């Protein structure tokens, strides 16, 4: 300040005296000095970061192999913070050169983040971009063993003091013992330390992943075992009689369960919340009570379910399923999504021209399909007459949305169809009437995904507005809003017991939500890019998630841990499906492949050494089925374990 005052005084003095030349010379001198200073200063700062980082980098790369891995983990946060510091201080040019020089090192692990951060070009962008803001405000947590931490400290203090400021952004968690050798992916991926703590905290919560009590499957099993017994006893009863028996017992049970549920219904109406029922710890799969009241199944539907269960093909690593592929032709890149009803008789597609089209495959499909005659006759006939009324279209055209349709989903008995669109709405259609029944408004941004619950009546949606919502078909307002994801919620899936939903998001996490409380019950960290597809095993214990890069990760819902991820595909995994017994996982991808994975062997391994930490087992690839340039949009196992797949033939390739 003083200097400036003096200079000003001198200048005014000179001006007064009329010494113009001197004044100019002085001014010139001054400006040169100041610019020099600023220049050299900028050069200094930038160089300091540059040198410091490259020194740290070469040191880390040259360190002993046993510590190398841990030390390399430190590099990424340091890199990011160096870059952001440079930007924050306004050295855009230098920041960019710095970024490009060292970018390659981190591309394998953090490509998506790098792509986002690359765009940051001014301090204001740092404030604006969420990823940058969060990572600057929060400290990264890195786990190091004592000796590597010591080494790092020593190095920083001796050779690389410049980096100290950056290193302080990292929260080191020093653990005694040996350095870890394999990268613990879930830890390395996230920049924000807080989310890991959060995940750990959340994943402590109790989770009732068991199947519903008194489900059809359970009754079926019982009935089957009963019938087995009778057969063993030597009463050679024909099957029809058997079925009759089952039906009778069914009817009784249904009556009782119906009254039970009615009672419960009232309770729900009164309190709005039911106390969580204690889980009955069965020996194989624990059973839980439903927290949602579902609709009653009509008896004929139950019967058809029984039939399907009885005729289900047993699948395992040796007996692979048959795959029936529905190819959409002439879509001109317009097909955004597809859905297949449980028996494969109805196929629906959502198009970017806002339309939804539904095909009745029984009508146009070839005769002699075993799977078609599965109790959908009523709806088919309805469709028939209506379709013939309209122009001779082979499909029913459902118009109503005003933006690209991003997902379609059939209700469990294929009487309803749900579609979500970029016009922020979800629409419910009747497949019998071919008409729109309800339009659900509530989301403020495009709705990426909508899924019917396994019992029908309820559905869940995922949206660009970062929320997932749970609705019932009879109310136009959502029942629950699940907020917590840091970016778009891209996909949603129901847990088989309907008490939970899982959501996958662009923030690279998967969350499991308790439908009753609307709270996040599990947080799964491990994906490196946006999560596109989810599936939960029929026993409710495991979940598979697929992402944009082609990675598939299996998760144990109860512990929140993952089986080590696999690069299942070369491109986006659009869809995943478990077979009915949960022995196989099918995945469909943009690389035009359907792959079948062996779940049982890998999961057995997981179950046996549950106590040990560290995921070791992997999914085993059983079969890769390539299509003829048709990306696979949708997969579904029928109740008889026939696998349906759908996709649009991509022209040109």
């Amino acid at each position, binding site marked *: 300040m003083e200097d400036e005052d003096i200079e000003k005084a001198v200048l005014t003095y000179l001006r007064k005296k009329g010494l113009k030349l001197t004044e100019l010379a002085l001014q010139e001198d001054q400006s040169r000095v100041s610019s020099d200073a600023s220049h050299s200063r900028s050069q200094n700062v930038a160089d300091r970061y540059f040198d410091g980082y490259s020194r740290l980098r070469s040191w880390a790369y040259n360190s002993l192999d046993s510590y190398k891995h841990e030390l390399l983990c430190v590099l990424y946060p340091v890199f990011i913070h160096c870059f952001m510091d440079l930007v924050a201080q306004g050295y*855009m*040019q230098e920041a960019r050169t710095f970024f490009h020089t060292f970018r390659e090192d981190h591309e394998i692990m953090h490509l998506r983040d790098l792509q*986002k951060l*690359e*765009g*940051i*070009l*001014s301090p*204001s*962008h740092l404030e604006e971009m969420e990823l940058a803001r969060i990572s600057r405000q929060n400290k990264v947590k890195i786990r190091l063993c004592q000796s590597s931490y010591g080494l790092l400290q020593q190095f920083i203090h001796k050779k690389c003091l410049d980096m100290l400021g950056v290193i302080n952004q990292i929260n080191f968690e020093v653990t005694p013992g040996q350095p870890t050798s394999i990268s613990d992916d879930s830890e390395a991926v996230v920049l924000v330390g807080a989310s890991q703590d959060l995940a750990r905290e959340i994943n402590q919560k109790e989770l009732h992943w068991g199947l519903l009590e008194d489900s059809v499957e359970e009754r079926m099993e019982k009935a089957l075992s009963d019938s087995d017994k009778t057969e063993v006893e030597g009463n050679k009863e024909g099957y029809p009689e058997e079925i009759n028996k089952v039906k009778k017992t069914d009817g009784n049970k249904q009556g009782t369960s119906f009254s039970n549920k009615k009672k419960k219904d009232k309770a729900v109406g009164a309190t709005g919340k039911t106390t969580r029922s204690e889980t009955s710890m069965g020996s194989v799969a624990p059973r839980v009570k439903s927290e949602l009241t579902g609709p009653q199944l009509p008896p004929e539907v139950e019967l058809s379910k029984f039939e399907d269960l009885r005729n289900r093909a047993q699948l395992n690593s040796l*007996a692979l*399923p*048959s*795959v*029936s*592929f*529905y*190819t*959409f*032709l*002439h879509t*001109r*890149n*317009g*097909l*955004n*999504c597809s859905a297949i009803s449980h028996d494969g008789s109805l196929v629906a*597609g959502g198009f970017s021209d806002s339309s939804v*089209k539904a095909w009745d*495959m029984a009508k146009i499909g070839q005769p*002699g*399909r*075993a799977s078609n005659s599965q109790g959908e006759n009523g709806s088919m006939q309805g469709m028939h007459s209506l379709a013939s009324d309209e122009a001779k*279209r082979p*499909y029913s055209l459902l118009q109503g949305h005003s*933006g690209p349709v*991003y997902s379609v989903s059939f209700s469990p008995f294929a009487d309803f169809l749900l579609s979500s669109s*970029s016009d922020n709405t979800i629409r419910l259609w009747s497949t019998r009437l071919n008409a729109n029944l309800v339009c659900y408004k509530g989301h403020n*941004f*495009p709705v*990426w995904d909508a899924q019917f619950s396994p019992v029908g009546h309820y559905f869940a949606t995922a949206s*660009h507005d970062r929320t997932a919502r749970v609705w019932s078909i009879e109310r136009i307002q959502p029942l629950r809003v699940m907020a917590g994801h840091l970016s778009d919620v*891209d996909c949603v899936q129901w847990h088989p017991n309907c008490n939970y939903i899982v959501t996958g998001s662009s923030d690279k996490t998967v969350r499991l939500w308790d439908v009753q409380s609307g709270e996040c019950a599990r947080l799964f960290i491990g994906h490196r890019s*946006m999560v596109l597809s989810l599936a939960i095993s029929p026993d409710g214990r495991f979940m598979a998630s697929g992402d*944009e890069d082609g990675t598939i990760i299996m998760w144990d819902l109860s512990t929140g841990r993952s089986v080590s991820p696999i690069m299942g595909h070369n*491109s*986006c995994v*659009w869809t995943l499906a478990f077979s009915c017994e949960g022995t196989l996982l099918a995945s469909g991808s*943009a690389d035009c492949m*359907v792959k*079948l994975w062996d779940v049982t062997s890998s999961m057995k391994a997981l179950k046996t050494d549950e106590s040990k930490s560290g995921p070791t087992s992997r999914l085993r690839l059983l079969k890769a*089925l*390539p*299509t*003829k*340039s048709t*990306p696979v*949009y949708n997969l579904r196992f029928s109740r008889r374990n026939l696998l349906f797949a759908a996709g*649009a033939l991509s022209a*040109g390739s």
Partner: protein
Amino acid sequence: MSIVPKETIEVIAQSIGIPNLSPDVALALAPDVEYRLREIIQEAIKCMRHSKRTVLTADDMDSALNLRNIEPIYGFASGDPLKFKRAIGHKDLFYLDDREVDFKEVIDAPLPKAPLDTAVVTHWLAIEGVQPAIPENPPIEAIVAPQDGKKMDHGKDDSLPVDLKLPIKHVLSRELQLYFDKIGELILLRPETALFKEALLSLAKDSGLHPLVPYFSYFIADEVSRNLSNLSILFALMRVLKSLLSNPHIHIEPYLHQMMPSIITCLVAKRVGEQVSDNHWAIRNFAAKLVSSICRRYGHVYHNLQSRLTRTLIHAFLDPSKALTQHYGAIRGLSALGPSVVRLLILPNLETYMQLLDPEMQLDKQKNELKRKEAWRVYGSLLLAAGSCLYDRLRLFPGLLSPPDIQPWKTNKKIALTHLPNNKRKASSTLNSHQPPTKKLAVDPTGANSQFPSTDGPATSSSCGSNPNHHHSHNSSNNNSSSAGNITNTNTNINNATGSGALAQRMAGSAVLRQAWKEDMDAGHLLSSLHSLFGEGVFSFIQPADMHLFI
């Protein structure tokens, strides 16, 4: 600093009506423009993913702009990704090919066909985990095991997969029937069109044609016997056969026995084609190639395939009552089966056959020009057969052409070229007496070869001139001289003037050949004998690489 240069900002400013944007402002705006662009592109990628695509389109950008409540950009909407063209002379400059369209043209143009409506078709991607070989599935690399393939392929029509395990009723789907009819029609009516070429391609590549194979084999056999006089149809049939044979998804072995007779008919039929002027030679050649490819591919499966085939052919070859055309076909067929067949079956009979053939080739003995021409054809095919055999030997025993011999040859070259044929012959014979191996070569061949009409024969005088050099070098200077003599011979003999002389030479040649056969073990000898029999025509069968070694 930013990827967006400030000039771009200035241009954009001008386009929205700000003529003089100061450079500082442009510079300051550039980074922000880039940031916003990236943001929007990232949003657009999200939209792309939710549209289940991996290619970003203009629609995605519009949806991304919509998400931010920005008006979309008009005029770029299209279902397909935009196609950019590279600007000529620039490595990284691309532009949209956006031509000006004349309204009048558009209005006057007839309405385009209505685009096909969206449809859903089903097929079996897998049956109990195994992909059936149907056209809807991508081609499997190869048929894994024959029995497996049979099981897969037999009952496999896309419409009747369920029948797989039942006793199979062979039902052709309507598509396949149409396909078959169409191909049949093409063969019989328009075998020259481009469409037929496409059809051949499809026959060679498509999976799922298996159910048609028995029909095709029957069709071909039938049509061949019916259309022996129609060359173009015969040719088309043979090409269809070839395509079927090359299709990796067809398990054709069970039908080979039905197809072979038709091919052999085309190969050794007495008369093929309507008129004598028809180029029936070409179809014989084609059939020969086909036969050899079949033997190569299925010989190990059908152990008696080749023996039966050679028996048939050698019968045709050795029966003097058969027409020359049939002989031609038989020779072509045998030679296509490989050099060892030639060595074992043709060469030993060469001498006797030559005796038979020779009168036919002489102007004075065979007055019928057509017959004479045919005889020359046969001669040419013999040359080809022997030559390829030679080539093969040479390849197997490259050591035969030993370097030390080069020197003497070089010195003699000049002389050799200047020698007159008669002198040379004399010289060679004298030399031969001391040097048994060279003797064979010396047997001066036959200007016959040179008389051979050059339509088929590979040798032109110029190429001969260069070839002999190295060929001879492997034995002695002596040979060189003789071969050079041959050349001159050829030149003089082209007009058939020296008929009888040539005959005498040929006789001598065959004697040497016999000798060569006695010492069959010595491949080098065989070589030289072959050469001597056929003269410089053989040289074209010697690999250029070998030639260079000695030039």
